[in-house]
C-alpha cells in the first residue's frame, strides 16, 4: 500500500490484512485470530448481502431515525461568519451516532450465531447503545466499565441495567476506559466461541476499524447527498471531533475522494497539549501499538500507556483509530487539538444561538470549526460552507456542564 493511494475509494483501504498504510493490523493474542477471521468473513459476506443491508437499513430508518437531518444553523452562522450546517446525529435514538455501529454489530453477532455480546464503555454512552441493541435483538449483554467511571456516571449504569445488561466495574489499572477495553479483550479471549466483542469505535484489531467505519459511514453518505440537495454543491469543509474516531471517520469517509472538501478532525486538547493533560493522540502522541492496532497513542518513553485527560468522557481515550493516523500522514485530513475551555465556550454558544444542547464531544468539533473559519475565509476569498458533525446530544453532560458553568445550584458561574 503506497502512501499516495487514495483512501476511501471503497474497498481500497485497508489492505487484505487490515493495514492502512503502516497503521492498523492485528496485534493480538493468537487465541483471538480465529475469531477475528470469522468476524472478517461474516462482515464481508454481510456487506455484500442484500438481505443484511436491507435489514440494517430498515433498523437505521425505522428504529434509529436515519437519515439524520442536515440543519442550516442560521443564527450560529450569522454569529461566526460562515455557513454552518449541522449533521444532527444528536437526534438519533440513544442520542448519538453510536447507534449505527451497535445495530450493525448486533445484527452481525446474531448472524454469526453468537448470542452474547460484550462491550467496553467510558462514560457509558457506548454501553447504553450496546445494551439498547442487545435488548432489541435479544442478545445477552455484558458491559465493562472502569470503576471510576461507574461512580462518575451512575445514571448510565442504571440505564444499562434497565435495558437488561450486566455492568461489570473494572478495578484494574487506572480503572477507566482503557482498562475496560483490557477486560473486554480478556473476556473475549476466554469466551470467544459464543461471544462477540461489540467494540465501540473504529479502532482495535482488523477488521474492527474498517467494519465500524462501514457501519457508521452512512453519516457522510447522507450528509454529502443532503449538501447536493440543499446547496446544489459540496461543502468547503467537513469537521468532527476525534476520540477513537468513529463519528469522524463516519462523516469523513464519503467525502475522502472529494479533493476540494477539506476534512478536519478535532482532538481533545484537555488543559492544553503542552500541559501533558490531554487526549490528543495524533497531535500530542506518538507511534505505537495499543488494543490491537498500530496507531498514534499517548505513551511514555518506555511505551507504557499514559492516562488521557478531557472534560469529555467520550474523547478521553489514549489512542485513535488507525485510519485517522493514515489520513493524517497522507495529509488528506487535518487534525488539531481543542481545549476543554474552547469546547465549553462552543457548547454554550450553540445552546444560546440555536437552542441545541450538544454533547461535549461534539462541542470540540464546533470549537475547532470556529478556529478554522478566518483562515478558510481568507483562502477561499468568501464565506465558507462547513458541515459539522453534531455527533451527540448533551443531555448526558448536564451534570458536567452545569458544574463547569457553576449553574447547578444557582451560584454564579466561574466560566460563564
Amino acid at each position: 500500500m503506497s502512501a499516495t493511494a487514495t483512501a476511501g475509494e471503497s474497498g481500497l483501504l485497508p489492505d487484505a490484512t487490515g493495514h492502512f498504510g503502516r497503521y492498523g493490523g492485528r496485534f493480538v493474542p493468537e487465541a483471538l485470530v480465529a475469531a477475528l477471521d470469522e468476524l472478517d468473513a461474516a462482515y464481508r459476506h454481510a456487506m455484500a448481502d442484500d438481505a443484511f443491508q436491507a435489514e440494517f437499513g430498515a433498523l437505521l430508518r425505522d428504529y434509529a431515525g436515519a437519515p439524520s437531518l442536515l440543519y442550516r444553523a442560521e443564527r450560529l452562522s450569522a454569529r461566526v461568519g460562515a455557513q454552518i450546517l449541522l449533521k444532527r446525529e444528536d437526534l438519533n435514538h440513544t442520542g448519538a451516532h453510536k447507534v449505527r455501529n451497535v445495530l450493525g454489530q448486533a445484527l452481525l453477532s446474531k448472524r454469526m450465531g453468537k448470542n452474547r455480546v460484550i462491550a467496553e464503555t467510558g462514560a457509558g454512552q457506548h454501553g447504553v447503545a450496546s445494551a439498547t441493541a442487545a435488548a432489541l435483538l435479544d442478545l445477552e449483554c455484558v458491559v465493562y466499565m472502569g470503576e471510576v467511571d461507574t461512580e462518575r456516571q451512575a445514571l448510565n449504569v442504571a440505564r444499562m441495567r434497565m435495558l437488561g445488561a450486566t455492568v461489570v466495574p473494572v478495578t484494574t489499572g487506572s480503572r477507566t476506559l482503557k482498562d475496560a477495553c483490557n477486560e473486554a479483550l480478556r473476556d473475549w479471549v476466554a469466551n470467544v466461541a459464543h461471544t462477540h466483542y461489540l467494540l465501540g469505535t473504529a479502532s482495535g484489531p482488523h477488521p474492527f476499524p474498517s467494519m465500524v467505519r462501514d457501519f457508521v459511514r452512512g453519516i457522510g453518505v447522507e450528509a454529502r447527498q443532503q449538501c447536493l440537495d440543499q446547496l446544489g454543491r459540496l461543502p468547503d469543509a467537513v469537521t468532527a471531533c476525534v476520540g477513537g474516531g468513529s463519528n469522524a471517520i463516519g462523516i469523513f469517509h464519503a467525502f475522502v475522494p472529494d479533493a476540494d472538501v477539506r476534512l478536519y478532525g478535532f482532538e481533545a486538547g484537555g488543559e492544553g497539549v503542552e500541559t501533558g493533560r490531554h487526549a490528543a493522540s495524533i497531535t500530542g502522541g506518538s507511534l505505537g501499538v495499543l488494543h490491537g492496532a498500530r496507531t498514534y497513542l499517548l505513551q511514555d518513553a518506555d511505551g507504557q500507556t499514559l492516562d488521557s485527560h478531557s472534560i469529555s468522557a467520550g474523547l478521553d481515550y489514549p489512542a485513535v483509530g488507525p485510519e485517522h493516523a493514515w489520513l493524517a500522514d497522507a495529509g488528506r485530513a487535518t487534525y488539531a487539538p481543542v481545549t476543554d475551555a474552547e469546547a465549553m465556550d462552543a457548547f454554550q454558544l450553540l445552546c444560546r444561538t440555536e437552542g441545541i444542547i450538544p454533547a461535549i464531544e461534539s462541542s470540540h468539533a464546533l470549537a475547532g470549526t470556529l478556529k478554522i473559519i478566518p483562515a478558510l475565509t481568507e483562502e477561499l476569498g468568501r464565506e465558507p460552507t462547513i458541515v459539522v458533525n453534531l455527533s451527540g446530544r448533551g443531555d448526558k453532560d448536564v451534570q458536567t456542564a452545569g458544574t463547569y458553568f457553576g449553574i447547578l445550584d444557582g451560584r454564579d458561574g466561574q466560566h460563564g
Partner: protein
Amino acid sequence: MSIAVAFEKARAEGRALLVGCMPAGFPTVDGSIAAMTAMVEAGVDVIEVELPYSDPVMDGPVIQKASDIALANGVRLADGLRVIEAVAATGAPVVTMTYWNPIQKYGVDAFARDLAAAGGTGLITPDLIPDEADEWLAASDAYGLDRTFLVSPSSTDARIAMTVAHCRGFVYATALMGVTGAREQTSADAPALVRRVRAVTDLPVGVGLGVGNGAQATEVGSFADGVIVGSALIRCLLGAPDLAAGLDALRALSTELAAGVRAVRR
C-alpha cells in the same frame, strides 16, 4: 545454557522442564532478582522474566497487579534488562516475555541487541503474531535470539504450522481459552493442542495457563515438554506480609513444582 539444551537435558532425564515466570521489578528490582534466584535454587529450570506493561491483555489479574506494582515503583525497561542480566548470571536460561509496544518504543533492533547482551535467550510475544513480526524476525535473527510465538486451541492447523515455522527454541501452547492465572483444573484441550503442534514440529512445546501446584505440574508434564507457571508463583509474593515470608512461600511452591515435573512417568 540455551533453551534448546535445557529442554534436551530435561528430556534425557525423562521429565518435563519447569519454566517459572516473574515480572521484573516486582515487588522491587532487587526483590525480583532475589525471587528469581530463589526459584532457580529451588529447582525451576528456566526463568521467564516478564517486563511489566501497563495494559497486559493476555495476563490475568495476578500478573496485572504485580506489573502495576512494578510500574508504580518506577521500573523502567532498562531495569528489566538489568534483572535479566542478574538472573542469567545464576546459570539458568532466561527467556523474556513482554507486549509489543514497549519493544517497538525501545526500538526493535536495539531491544534485541540489549536483550542478547544481557544474556537473555529469547522472547515470548503474547500480542505479536508472525503475521506482524517482520521486524522482530529480522532482529532476532541478527542477534541469535529465540522466538516463541503462541498457539491456541482455536488456532487452525494451517496457523499452527505457520506459527511454529517462525518459532525457535520452543513453542508456547496456551492450553486454555483464557488469560493467565492459576485454576482449579487444567484444560482438557491441552493434550490435543500439544499433539497438533507436535504433528508439525520437533521443537519442544511448553504449556502455560492454569498450573498452580505439583500435581498439576505432573499432569501437564506428562504430555508437554515444558510446564510454565506464573500466577501461582507471583501470588506467593503478593499475599505475603513481607519479602522474606514471600520468598519462603515461593521456595516452597517452586520445590513442589520442581518435584512435580520430576514425577512425570512417560
